[in-house]
């Protein structure tokens, strides 16, 4: 009798499970957030460096991230001012503008070094000071790239009294190539991006001018992102520095020593520079 019951159970239980299956709810999928990065490097470099960081965050947080790659810095600026990305890695000027336009909140920034714009020329050129660039063509990544372009142009114009022709070439890497190939007499960049260039590029360039240091690029979040998630993301990024592998990932995205950012402390001074005079509004 007992055996008969067991046999019936073996037959009926799978049938009951099959019948009950359509009534189950679909599997839960984590919410998806977009993550945009200022394209001061090539899209390939950005994808290569940021994808591992986002995969790590997905691993420790119940969310998914989609890397949004802008074709140029103006396009990026346009998307940020429109509030499109949920998270953005952007320069301090963009941070100020995005804060003002959409209320983006900085979460973490690099604490190892401050952001400093540099003006480079070919190492074997006869240019030794900013004054030698009077009337020359100078390459910049984009009009509103903060330290490399905006802050630099403001200083060259206001402080150095230099008259020059600005050529916007898209990326920091391209700025350096323009200077090296003689397409521009000089180029505006930042120390962090120059340090990432191959030795052949670094050795062939010479820095003739530096901007004062400001807080580095932050990772900012749109206000629609829940504060708890913002905190979790910031903690996760800061926590990456606790391991060698994590430090390697952070080094690649120019956040070698991440620390929690504060808008008033870090980026309000940038707003006080009144750089809008040199900014080019993003196309609509």
């Amino acid at each position: 009798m007992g055996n008969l019951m067991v046999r019936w159970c073996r037959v009926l239980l799978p049938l009951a499970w099959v019948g009950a299956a359509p009534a189950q709810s679909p599997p839960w999928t984590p919410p998806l957030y977009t993550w945009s990065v200022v394209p001061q490097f090539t899209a390939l470099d950005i994808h290569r460096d940021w994808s591992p960081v986002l995969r790590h965050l997905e691993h420790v947080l119940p969310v998914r991230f989609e890397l949004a790659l802008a074709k140029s810095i103006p396009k990026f600026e346009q998307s940020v001012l429109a509030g499109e990305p949920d998270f953005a890695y952007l320069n301090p000027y963009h941070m100020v503008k995005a804060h003002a336009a959409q209320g983006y909140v900085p979460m973490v920034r690099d604490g190892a070094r401050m952001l400093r714009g540099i003006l480079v020329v070919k190492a074997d050129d006869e240019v030794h000071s900013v004054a030698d660039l009077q009337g020359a063509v100078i390459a910049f990544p984009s009009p509103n790239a903060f330290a490399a372009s905006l802050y630099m142009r403001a200083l060259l114009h206001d402080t150095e009294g230099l008259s020059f022709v600005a050529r916007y070439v898209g990326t920091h890497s391209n700025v350096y190539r323009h200077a090296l190939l003689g397409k521009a007499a000089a180029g505006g960049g930042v120390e962090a991006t120059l340090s990432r260039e191959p030795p052949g590029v670094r050795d062939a360039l010479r820095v003739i001018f530096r901007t004062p240091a400001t807080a580095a690029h932050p990772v900012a979040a749109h206000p629609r992102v829940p504060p708890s998630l913002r905190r979790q993301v910031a903690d996760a990024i800061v926590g990456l520095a606790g391991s060698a592998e994590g430090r390697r990932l952070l080094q690649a995205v120019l956040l070698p020593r991440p620390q929690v950012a504060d808008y008033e402390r870090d980026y309000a001074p940038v707003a006080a520079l009144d750089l809008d005079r040199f900014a080019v509004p993003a196309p609509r």
Partner: protein
Amino acid sequence: MSARGPGRGAAVAGLGWWTRRGLHAQLIIAGAVLLAATVLVGTLINIAQRREEILEDARANTSTLAVNIALTAIDMIVAERYDDLEALLERSARFQSVRSILAVDAHGALLGFVVREADGEPQARYRAPARIERPQDPGRRHVHEDLAARRLIVWQPVSTTDLIAWVRIEASLEPAFAARTRVLQQNLAAGAGAIAVDVLLLLLILSGPRRSVRGAIAFAGRLADAKGSTLQVRPTALEVDTLVRALNDASRMLHEREQALQKANAELLGKERLATLGQMAATVSHELRNPMGTIRNAVTLLQRRLREREPEVEQALQRLVRSTERCDRIIEDMLDYARSQPVHQVRTPLDGYLSSELAHVAPPPGVTIDARLAAPGLAVMLDRERFRSVIGNLCDNAFHAIEQAGERSTRALVVATRPVGGQAEITFTDTGCGMSREALDSAFVPLFSTKSFGVGLGLPLVRQILEQHGGEVEIRSDEGRGTCVLLRLRAACE
């Protein structure tokens, strides 16, 4: 005498380098040289083909790469994205054999330059290499092979409607030359292996014939002492086997001729001795004839005077007469044999001649002559006088043998004739004591006799006369039972 044969060292000293090698070494050297030449020619052809294939591949691959770079780079050049262009050139420079990629604008200003040394990482350079001359015709791709520098240079124009830039790729042709070296090494290794196998196979194949030839050479060297012995024939090669068989035949022939020569020498020696003896016998016989005639005349006179007076004396005289006749016979035989007079043959009916001659033969008491003449009409060419000696000698021998055999139921001599082919056979068959083996072997040896009174010239004289007639004589004897003497004579033509 060495095992290799007589005078090999002296023979070798007179030969040229090639001839001195020997057949097996010549075959091995010729085979190796032929194979080496084949391998060399094949290798050269293979190298040429392989090198052309690799050159063609290099041309096609480099041209394709140049076209791809041009198509991809055109946007970057127009947009002045030199960082992207550099990345493109770096990626492209990772292709095998690429040494450098250069991009210059239509005026020759540098746009990008990537160099890859050996198998290292591509390195960007920001100074154009010296002495770069752009092609004059922007309407097509330019491919230039610099074999001395082992490089291939492709200039690819980057154009829309107008020329925007040039892409120059320099590719290494080392793989083509390395392939040539590799093919050379592989072919030479394979060729050396083939030559080694060829030499080993030839050594293996030729070892048998070589051993046989060496054996034949040694055998030929001692052929004079071989005494008819033969060399073992090993199945190695047709020519060698034929040579060995020919040597064996030569050995046998040499031995036979040596034996014949020895026999001829012995006969010649005997004949010379007999000739000397014959001359002496003839002289003695001739000198004895006169005394014998005197004795015979004296005996006849005594017989006439003392007949019927002294019977005992008469008997003694008769014995004396018979002895005298026997002496005459011996003297005649000796003279006949020694003189070897030429025969004068005339056509003679055989049976009639024999019947006539046998009628004059007086057999001993109790012995009969049975003439079974069965060749009527058969004629032979005979010297009738000399052939009479043959009949007399054979009858005397038969009668003596019959006497020696003692009393028998049949004491007869059968003389028979018969035609056999173009010959006449005459047999004298007696029922005597026969002949021993030794007597049979020496029957025709002059001066050999088993008779107490004979000088041993009867049968030699018979053979001499038969040979002079172109015939032959043969004796068949069964000791204790009798003897048959067979004479063969050519039949006379009609």
